[in-house]
């Protein structure tokens, strides 16, 4: 969805489980946690706080 990145909760190299919050974004004045679709290691974070994002944009890569 369209919105703005608020916080990055996990750093590159960190291990995440499925449904862990990776990024918090803001859309329509509401904070929305974006969770990991699957468990793994964060390989790349493609956004920074304050950045505006579009629908279907890749925010992070998890391996």
């Amino acid at each position, binding site marked *: 969805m369209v919105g703005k990145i608020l916080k990055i909760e996990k750093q590159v190299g960190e291990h995440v489980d499925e449904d862990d919050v990776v990024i918090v974004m803001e859309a*329509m*004045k*509401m904070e929305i*946690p974006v*969770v990991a679709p699957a468990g793994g290691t964060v390989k790349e974070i493609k956004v920074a706080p304050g950045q505006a994002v579009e*629908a*279907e944009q890749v925010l992070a890569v998890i391996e």
Partner: protein
Amino acid sequence: MDSALVNGLQGLVVGVVSLSLGQAFMIAVACVLLYLGIAKGYEPLLLVPIGFGAIMVNIPLADMMGQGGFLRFFYDGGVRSEIFPLLIFIGIGAMTDFAPLLQNPKIILLGAAGQFGIFITLLLALALGFDKLDAVAVAVIGACDGPTAIYVSSKFAPHMLGAVSVAAYSYMSLVPLIQPPIMRALTTEKERTIVMGAAKSAPISKTAKIVFPIVVTIFASILAPKGAPLIATVMLGNLLRESGCVDRLKNCSENELTNIVTLLLGLCIGGTMEADKFLKTQTLLVLVLGFIAICLDTAVGVLFGKAMCALTGGKINPLIGAAGISAFPMSARVVQAEGQKYNKKSYLLMHAMSANAGGQIGSVIAAAVMLSVLQGMGIVGG
């Protein structure tokens, strides 16, 4: 000298002794509204001026709602003339992006379904012996849209304006509490976890966005001329936004204009909450029926969402039906929060926003239709 002093002091206490029990009670009610607005953050932009207006009007002997009074001046000029709510509609139009709706026109049906509660409540209020015009004002609380409720009640039942608008605004701020239990009761766990893909990102052309408000104004106003001012003002605001060439007017509409009118409108609504006019059993009935109206809207919206879910083979999460009531954008946020509670990977916000924008238009059109039907029945004069 002594007696002059006593007389002087009497002049100071005369206000205290003329304070009636009802007025004291209403001042307490007003303080509760202020508390809810300031400390709890429930619609503070409205509750603060409403609460303060209610204190002002219940001060004995000050007579601010009397002829030539401070509140009366704005009430006659802005509320009785129906001007304030219409000016707010211009601001709402300027703030609303109808693009999600144009991208997914199916969803507008949810916005229509979310208005059924209005008509059911209308019948209920009539059955309870409300005067026809009063019943309309009560039912319109179900629109879950403050300015619509204010517009309709100031037109037909100005004596109920205080009760109707307080009900409308307080239930709107309670949407996050009222809706979830109904949403849960009417859906299965499996339905609540349905993930809806990213809203189709096929961009809507600028032309379509500009043509939309013009076409809606023309067709909806011809269909329901009584509600034309409602629709026309929302769409005018939207045209200011989408035309892209009058940013100054658009910015003024969504900021300064809306802020000034909200302040004055809030004070006036508070001003209708005079003890002897507000403390009636009718007010209590209005509050109860208004609550029922919002529950019914939510229920019908969710049930309609379920129907759409079945028809699309499980592609639509029925929770978004709850956003078909107007309460923009609160109910869309409620849907997002509920959906993510059951499935963390579920992001319903944008879909819910479409339904919510549909509800926004839906409630205005529902009110317009109601006005035109009543006129057709000869209940309201032309």
